[in-house]
């Protein structure tokens, strides 16, 4: 399609990309229809739509990335299928059983990029963040991925398990000071721990987005489990404090907030990427330039965090709203699954997974449209990046499984 728009004809590479899309999403969808027949059927099609638009955009921005991404797509759907098969006999209950194993794994994965860069499996720093793990064998870089993306999923599973364990205490034991009902200090411990963990991610890996995502998802899950807004308020205060401290202490956080407040004052510097994103959005107007006909290549590293701006330039406001609505529908579907789930663990897990989709897409969509500071996080299913694709496809499979296990 892009090739045709540019006056060329459909070539083998474009056809292959299309074929991979159909096989990966279509295959997984068909498999899920058999494995979890009672699940809501529209989870995968929505994500597939987003993914297809994203892949076309990546293809037009950077052909090499698109060829990598389509292999990752196959890997991701294969892994998602394996997860689905693994959950076939015992269902999601098995996830609850191994929650501490998941926590351990998540922490190891989070710390993995700190591995010295001399080992065959080494940590790599790219664009100022140390988030990557690279397999280096026989003198060649074989494959590189972001373990944090998988850890994100494992942490949500752990939290759902942990919070459903603690739910009775969370619900009952509030201390009353007059009219003010405060949670007991012991309950606040996990909040503090989560705050510390997210700050750790921010400080040691300089990953503002992941840190914010983890903390927000955790806080909201805690709120869902306890029903107490006090957790939210306290957590919000803590995070604001942390953000202020980060603004003072870390150049990269301060630069992002300054660029958000006024991208034009340092147009050639820190504001450049955001300004280019706004130009792309504005130039897209209502109907867009048409795929392949805009100039989203003017946005630096458009294929990852800023993929949405590139897409919105080429498919316009009409298409951009379509994408946003797709995310909203996915979140709504996930929340619906949570509401109908039969026990607290499944409710929390479904909520947590929906929150990951919702918060992550809001963070980055808000970032590129200057509603929020740019936090640097990928857009689920759309951005270029293999590990995120794997994690988010597994996430879909889990949601589908939870939907299948709904109380009838």
């Amino acid at each position: 399609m892009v090739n045709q728009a540019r006056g060329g004809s459909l070539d083998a590479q474009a056809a292959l990309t299309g074929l991979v899309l159909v096989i990966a999403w279509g295959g997984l969808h068909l498999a899920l229809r058999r494995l979890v027949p009672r699940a809501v059927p529209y989870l995968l099609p929505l994500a597939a739509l987003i993914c297809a638009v994203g892949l076309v955009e990546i293809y037009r921005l950077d052909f090499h990335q698109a060829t990598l991404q389509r292999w990752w797509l196959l890997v991701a759907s294969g892994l998602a299928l394996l997860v689905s098969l693994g959950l076939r006999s015992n269902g999601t209950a098995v996830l609850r059983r191994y929650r501490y194993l998941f926590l351990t794994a998540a922490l190891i994965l989070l710390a993995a990029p700190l591995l010295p860069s001399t080992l065959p499996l080494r940590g790599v720093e790219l664009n100022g963040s140390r988030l990557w793990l690279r397999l280096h064998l026989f003198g060649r870089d074989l494959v590189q991925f972001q373990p944090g993306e998988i850890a994100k999923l494992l942490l949500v599973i752990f939290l759902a398990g942990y919070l459903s364990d603690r739910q009775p205490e969370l619900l009952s034991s509030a201390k009353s000071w007059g009219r003010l009902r405060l949670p007991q200090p012991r309950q606040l411990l996990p909040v503090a721990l989560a705050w510390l963990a997210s700050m750790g991610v921010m400080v040691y890996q300089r990953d503002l987005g992941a840190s914010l995502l983890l903390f927000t998802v955790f806080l909201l899950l805690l709120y869902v489990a306890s029903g107490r807004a006090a957790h939210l308020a306290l957590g919000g205060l803590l995070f604001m404090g942390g953000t202020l401290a980060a603004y003072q202490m870390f150049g990269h956080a301060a630069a992002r907030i300054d660029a958000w407040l006024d991208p034009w004052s340092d147009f050639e510097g820190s504001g450049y990427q955001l300004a280019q994103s706004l130009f792309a959005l504005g130039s897209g107007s209502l109907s867009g330039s048409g795929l392949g006909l805009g100039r989203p290549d003017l946005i630096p590293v458009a294929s990852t965090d800023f993929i949405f701006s590139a897409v919105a330039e080429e498919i316009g406001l009409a298409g951009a709203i379509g994408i946003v609505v797709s995310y909203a529908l996915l979140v709504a579907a996930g929340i619906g699954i949570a509401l109908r789930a039969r026990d607290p663990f499944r409710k929390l897990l479904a909520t947590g997974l929906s929150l990951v989709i919702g918060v992550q897409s809001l963070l980055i969509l808000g970032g590129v449209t200057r509603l929020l500071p740019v936090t640097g996080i990928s857009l689920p299913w759309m951005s270029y990046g293999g590990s995120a694709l794997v994690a988010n496809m597994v996430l879909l499979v889990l949601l589908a499984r939870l939907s299948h296990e709904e109380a009838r």
Partner: protein
Amino acid sequence: MNTSIRRTAAGLLVGFLLLVLNLTYLQAIAGPRYRDDLRNRRVQVARAETERGPILSREGVVLAQSRIQSDGSFLRVYPEGSLYAHTVGFSSLLFGDRGLERTRAQQLAASPSGTISAIIDSLLGRARAALGLRLTLSHTLQTAAAVALGNQTGAVVALDPTTGEVLAYYSSPMFDPALLLGEASAPGDALEADPTQPLLDRAGYATYAPGSAFKIITAAAGLEAGSINSGSEFPNPEQLALPGSSATISNFGGGRCGPADTATVADAFRLSCNTVFAQVAMELGAEELVARAEAAGFNQAIPFELAVLDSAIPSAESFANDRPGLGQTGIGQRDLRATPLQMALVAAAVATDGSIMNPYLVEEVFTASLQVRERAEPRVWKRAMSPGTAAALRELMLGAVASGTGTRAQVDGVSVGGKTGTAEVPGGAPHAWFVGFATIDDESLALAVLVESGGALGEEATGGSVAAPIAGAIISAWSQITPLHLSSPE
């Protein structure tokens, strides 16, 4: 637990709603602003990929055209260099569009192709190919103006008084638009910082004290009111004492206006006597003088395609207790300010039956197959004076060129009339003016010449010595190509 799940979901929903609203704002409302921001490289890319139609002089000389490059993009070239920089203007990636390149951008530029909105446009029949412009400007007269002004600072405006076609519109110093077309901003920044202000359009976007050239208006006001005729006699002192003040008005270079004790209006106009015209203005009163100036276009926005300034005369009320000020205004000093374009329009009123046509630059808009898409229609802008007053003024102005201050504007075989002006500038050399007309049979030309700060003669300059010869050169060039309609391709 379901309650808090619902609340959380509601929170996320609000987030998505905000996102949609913000997107709508960015893409639909603020979109055009971002799209046209000069820092948006898309603007430059789109310009380079858009063909613009040619701009031709009235004789068909190419003034601007798009040349296709090997990479398929277009390069705008101005073969006549600086000669038309203030009229044709330029289409620059860094500095935007100016002149006709700006005002006619919609017609000159082809609509973009290949985009979805372009497809919608073509379905609605709104898509178009690049159109070309044929101007009223005469390459012959424009060149003559540039040669005659030389390196002096100033401006020339010449037009056909019967139609309003602008034949020459030149401001000196000029600049080469090619300097502004490149990717580097330094040459353009240097032009902007240049103390001689080459970017300034002195023909329409700068105002000067008109000096004695304003006596055309003073005379018109007196003739129209019936307070004078060309034979009216006025006292002829060496110095005119201004009532209510110690100030006096004397004639240029001192002395009286002719040898006699009285001077006629015709002689005073011919010799440009300040003493007489100050009396004319003071006897007439401010109301009549200001009304006549406004009828001739002062204090009004001239309906012209390029951005021009209004010429200004203070209100009649401001002269209520200022008879000396009125006298000085009558001879074109004090707070009077006029553009060369305005003075050319005054000349046009005199050259015709007293009416001023809308001045215009674009004769026709034509398609790639040279079919005329649109042709200018002459329109009357103002009735500056009655036909009788115009006829009387023509006699006065013919006299000034035949045997007065404007003799150096004479051209063999052409009947030339005009009024010189030497406007005093505090602390500097005077501005030299010549405002006049020329006729051959039924053809006529109205023009205004301004030379800033005395030009080559500096302090010694007068309108007659500096500006009149330039007018003569332009009229001479005009006489070679008249009648004009034979020289324009149809």
